[in-house]
């Protein structure tokens, strides 16, 4: 009986339903995009390596309140790395970071990229995997061997046909042997190509490539023994380095320890809030759709006053009339909700593809949005249904 009434005003019904369709699909698209972003962040966190802390040098200018990280290279030393590794119980591995830029040449191919120098633990700390060949060893680090491990992007550009491992390439006019290729990691959160990099022992960069008299370490990467240990590790490293750098109590640190797990958690929390925000904005459109439903139901009650009168005269109780109108609005909303779910899934896949985000359709969001649309039907259908049910049969019958 409810379906009968919906069939009669097809355009009106379709337009009303459109409100719900838009509302539901907006909720699904927004929540899906938000959760996609969340997943992206999670992937990125996994990409940074597990339980990672980074230590950066930070010089103090005497006398001034101003402090900066512009000349950070003199602070951290190899001995610091060694000490952190050996003396801090919460630390599993520690690796120095030294960076350089260079042009990579093989035959007539060339490619400019950055080079990260570290020790044999770096691969594990940062959660990298090898695609081909091997990473450099402790021995390579000790002897400052002229070996290089290429990121996927460099390998692809220098060796379009593959077979990079074992080849000799030139970087800054010195020959290096390619001993391995890294497994790809893709883009970072800020859109950088993480595979456009190369790795070699930090000693090689310091001694062979840059020829530094005073070895510089820009950064130290550390992995804690567990996720829970990242906090203690940060404290322990801080006190160890203060002691080693002879910083008196009350004096500021000349280094900074970043707990990447904290950063990751903060980023995840941010995206979660974003998701909720987007979802609730979208929910407002569902609310607007619901008001549309209420409007059409009120019009429908007025239009069908006489019919309601007839039904009452031949013995329909008010409750039956109420159920009929309520069923009508719920059906309207549920059909709209279903179309909205399909549309929303399509929309979120489409946007994800367009923006190059990981497409992630949240089944919970779809389910909740659908149930919410049914709830909208009940909530906004109740008043018109109640109005219909409380009509006076005599007046309703007289209505023209």
């Amino acid at each position, binding site marked *: 009986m409810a379906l009968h009434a919906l069939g009669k005003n097809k355009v009106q019904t379709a337009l009303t339903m459109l409100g719900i369709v838009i509302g539901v699909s907006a909720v699904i698209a927004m929540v899906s995009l938000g959760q996609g972003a969340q997943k992206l962040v999670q992937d990125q966190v996994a990409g940074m390596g597990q339980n990672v802390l980074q230590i950066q040098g930070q010089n103090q200018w005497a006398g001034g309140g101003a402090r900066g990280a512009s000349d950070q290279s003199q602070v951290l030393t190899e001995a610091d790395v060694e000490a952190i590794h050996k003396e801090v119980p919460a630390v599993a591995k520690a690796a120095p970071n030294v960076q350089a830029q260079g042009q990579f040449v093989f035959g007539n191919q060339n490619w400019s990229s950055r080079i990260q120098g570290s020790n044999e633990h770096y691969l594990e700390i940062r959660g990298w995997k090898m695609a081909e060949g091997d990473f450099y060893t402790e021995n390579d680090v000790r002897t400052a061997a002229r070996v290089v491990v290429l990121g996927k992007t460099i390998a692809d550009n220098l060796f379009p046909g593959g077979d990079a491992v074992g080849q000799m390439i030139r970087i800054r006019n010195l020959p290096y042997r390619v001993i391995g290729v890294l497994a790809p990691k893709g883009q970072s959160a800020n859109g950088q190509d993480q595979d456009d990099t190369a790795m070699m022992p930090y000693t090689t960069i310091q001694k062979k490539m840059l020829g530094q008299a005073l070895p510089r370490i820009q950064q130290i990467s550390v992995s804690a023994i567990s996720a829970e240990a990242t906090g203690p590790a940060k404290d322990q490293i801080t006190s160890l380095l203060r002691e080693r750098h002879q910083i008196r109590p009350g004096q500021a640190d000349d280094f900074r320890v970043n707990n990447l797990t904290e950063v990751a958690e903060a980023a995840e929390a941010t995206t979660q809030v974003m998701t909720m925000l987007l979802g609730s904005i979208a929910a407002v459109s569902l609310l607007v759709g619901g008001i549309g439903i209420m409007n059409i139901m009120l019009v429908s009650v007025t239009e069908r006053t006489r019919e309601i009168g007839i039904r009452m005269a031949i*013995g*329909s109780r008010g409750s039956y009339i109420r159920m009929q109108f309520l069923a009508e609005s719920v059906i309207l909303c549920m059909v709209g909700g279903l179309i909205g779910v399909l549309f929303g899934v399509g929309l979120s896949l489409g946007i994800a593809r367009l923006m190059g985000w990981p497409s992630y359709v949240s089944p919970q969001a779809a389910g909740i949005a659908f149930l919410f649309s049914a709830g909208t039907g009940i909530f906004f259908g109740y008043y018109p249904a109640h109005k219909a049910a409380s009509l006076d049969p005599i007046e309703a019958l007289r209505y023209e």
Partner: protein
Amino acid sequence: MTDASRAPVISLKDVHKIYRTGEIEVHALRGVSLEVRKGEFIAVMGPSGSGKSTMMNLIGCLDRPTSGSYILDGVDVSTMSKNQRADTRNAKIGFVFQSFNLIPRTSAVENVELPMVYAGMAPAERRERARKAMASVGLEAKERSLPNQLSGGQQQRVALARALANNPAIILADEPTGALDSKTADEIMRIFRQLNDERHMTIVLVTHEPDIALHAKRLVRFRDGEILEDRPIKHEDDELVLHAQTGM
């Protein structure tokens, strides 16, 4: 034809109905008493505003009297709740209206089924009974037709079938021929007479037209909220026609 030994189907005792619209009070019924026994066929006449519509609404359990009592088929209606009155209408009263009042966009047979739907009858049974009711008014071929595909006479016959669906105690017909031409009106009145003669259906008929009233067996005439006249109709009752011609 009235049989005094049978209990009255309708029993109105000193019924008053007062409508209040703001400051104005309208005394629509001023102490009406009426008894209708099973198998009676009553024509209710009177000018508009005479109280006959008010009385029809009361008899039809659409409204309650301000004072006085109304016993329908042995049950006191004057104290019933809204839902009880809805159930009573469903079980005991078959309505036939001037404008047919079929549910639009709903097939004839579904219209006839509707009272049985509200009575909670199983689909198979009510479809069966609706078909029989359609056949009894000679419309078995039009079951699937929508109201707007039927002529006025056919629509009124569907309405009659619907009124009969739950085997009511009385049929209340409010100007059932008012929207029909005289030939079709005659056909509809023949069905009413048939129902009264063969099935002893109690019928209360409101009409303006003396020709139509002549089909009934008893005449109740209203004026100013009171019963002016209550008498049997004889077959060669030209006084009725005369009365109508001199003005209502």
